[in-house]
């Protein structure tokens, strides 16, 4: 009974907690610019995130250790230095993007510029982390995050042509702006396979005291939860494809993204969009801040856990406090959160080989994982996407940056 409840909660968390500003921005831009042509990137990223999340949960359940602890103990500190530094950078940029997302939602509702909201939003997130337990954070934000299902409802209401949707699942060449097309493909993949997702999931499994008996739960949560989560992104991509692409609107600001939903839900669509953006980013900001503190504390062997009082793991609390503060400063400078998001998501994808390599080595070590070590399919799928993302990033990134 307890496992069934945890399974349900796990799936709910995966669905509600999956969607964030990265998914929202990249899916909207992809739909607006290329209609359904980039659905394949969403599908490819989803397959890899299922493998990565399942692996991270499996590692936690089998070893009862976090990934940084495992790397430190079995592979040595040296191999972890570069991935750790890259992870810190990506975490901080992602927190900035999520805080920027909440600030943009508030800007949509109030008309007050996003950078004014950065600090109040940061304080709110910090207070939440300071006061709440892991489960309170996980379940409350994930439950509220189910509001993002409105994108799926909107997509179904629009009756998109099935043949075109299926064609979008196969990679195809763009008719124009190839650099933008490939950069968006990388960004979509990066939004799905954000490293915080599987580091957070693994730490959460330890917080929830998972053991080998949870391997089945882990597999179902990873497959069902991530798939349904990706369906929300696909829903938004379809809505943007039907509404914005048809009108010739490219999305480079949040206001342009916000006009997709009112066409389906008159008047309320606008509010729904702002609420979805705010809640999704709040949940993600909490998760990424925690993931930053988890990764750092586990790397240095500090005491960690969101269920502990901050006084009992002061360095853990200090890390998320510092991370939120730096992220707030980035947003306060007035840098467009949409731009921060797109570039951070592309960096997420490009950094996958670096941050996932030590983890993959652990997952393939029979001495650590025993009979639960990785199979050939998960290794090949992860390696292929990691290399593809890196190459596409290297080719499309400079053109896009210098072009704009």
């Amino acid at each position, binding site marked *: 009974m307890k496992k069934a409840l945890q399974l349900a909660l796990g799936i709910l968390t995966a669905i509600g907690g999956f969607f964030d500003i990265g998914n929202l921005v990249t899916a909207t831009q992809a739909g607006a610019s290329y209609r359904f042509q980039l659905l394949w990137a969403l599908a490819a990223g989803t397959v890899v995130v299922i493998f990565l999340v399942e692996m991270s949960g499996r590692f936690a359940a089998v070893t009862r250790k976090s990934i940084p602890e495992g790397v430190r103990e079995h592979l040595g500190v040296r191999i972890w230095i570069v991935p750790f530094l890259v992870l810190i950078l990506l975490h901080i940029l992602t927190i900035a993007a999520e805080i920027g997302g909440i600030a943009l939602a508030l800007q949509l509702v109030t008309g007050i510029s996003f950078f004014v909201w950065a600090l109040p939003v940061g304080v709110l997130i910090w207070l939440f982390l300071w006061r709440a337990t892991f489960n309170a954070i996980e379940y409350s934000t994930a439950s509220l995050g189910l509001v993002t299902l409105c994108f799926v409802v909107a997509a179904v209401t629009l009756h998109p042509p099935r043949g075109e949707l299926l064609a979008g699942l196969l990679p195809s060449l763009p008719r*124009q702006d190839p650099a933008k097309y490939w950069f968006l493909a990388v960004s979509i993949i990066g939004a799905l396979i954000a490293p915080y997702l599987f580091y957070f999931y693994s730490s959460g499994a330890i917080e929830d005291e998972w053991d080998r008996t949870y391997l089945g739960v882990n597999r179902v949560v990873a497959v069902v939860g991530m798939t349904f989560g990706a369906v929300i992104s696909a829903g938004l991509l379809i809505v943007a494809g039907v509404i914005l692409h048809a009108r*010739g609107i490219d999305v*480079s600001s949040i206001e342009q993204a916000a006009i997709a939903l009112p066409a389906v839900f008159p008047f309320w669509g606008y509010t729904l969009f702002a609420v979805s953006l705010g809640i999704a980013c709040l949940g993600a900001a909490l998760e990424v801040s925690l993931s930053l503190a988890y990764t750092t504390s586990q790397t240095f062997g500090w005491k960690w856990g969101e269920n502990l009082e901050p006084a009992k793991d002061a360095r853990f609390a200090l890390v998320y406090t510092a991370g939120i503060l730096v992220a707030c400063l980035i947003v306060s400078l007035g840098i467009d959160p949409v731009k921060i998001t797109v570039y951070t998501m592309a960096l997420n994808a490009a950094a996958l080989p670096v941050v996932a390599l030590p983890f993959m080595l652990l997952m393939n070590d029979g001495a650590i994982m025993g009979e639960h070590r990785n199979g050939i399919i998960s290794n090949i799928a992860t390696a292929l996407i990691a290399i593809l993302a890196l190459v596409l990033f*290297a*080719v499309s990134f400079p053109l896009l940056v210098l*072009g704009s």
Partner: protein
Amino acid sequence: MTSSRACATLALAFLGTACVGPEQRAIEAVSDLASLRATLDEVCADAIANRVPARFAERTLEKGRSRIERDRSTVAGLAVPADLREGTDSLAAAILNDIANAIPALRARDSAALVPIRIRLAALREPLEALETRARSFAAQPAQQ
């Protein structure tokens, strides 16, 4: 040896794609202008049909104004053919004029006044598409022009 050759190939690809000239910037600015026209048209339609709050429509128009001015000055500062530069300038001016008329109408919640503005914005679609095609043809063969 193989890995160093692969690195060199990747570096060349990186440097090759990094060469972005005025052609690409012109395409981006004109595309943005076309996208903004479509956005403003849609927002006005939403405001007329009461699908979005008038204050949101007003803010979107205000933001669109500053981006149109930026796109206009971007193309004005590029070494592009005169017809492309002048076309961008006149179409940007036309959209800015419509924004200037639409904002007071939105403030006054005067939907009727928005209808002719929408018609004018819709009429700018084709000239902007033609301008975008012109920018792309210039990008394809800049040396001959």
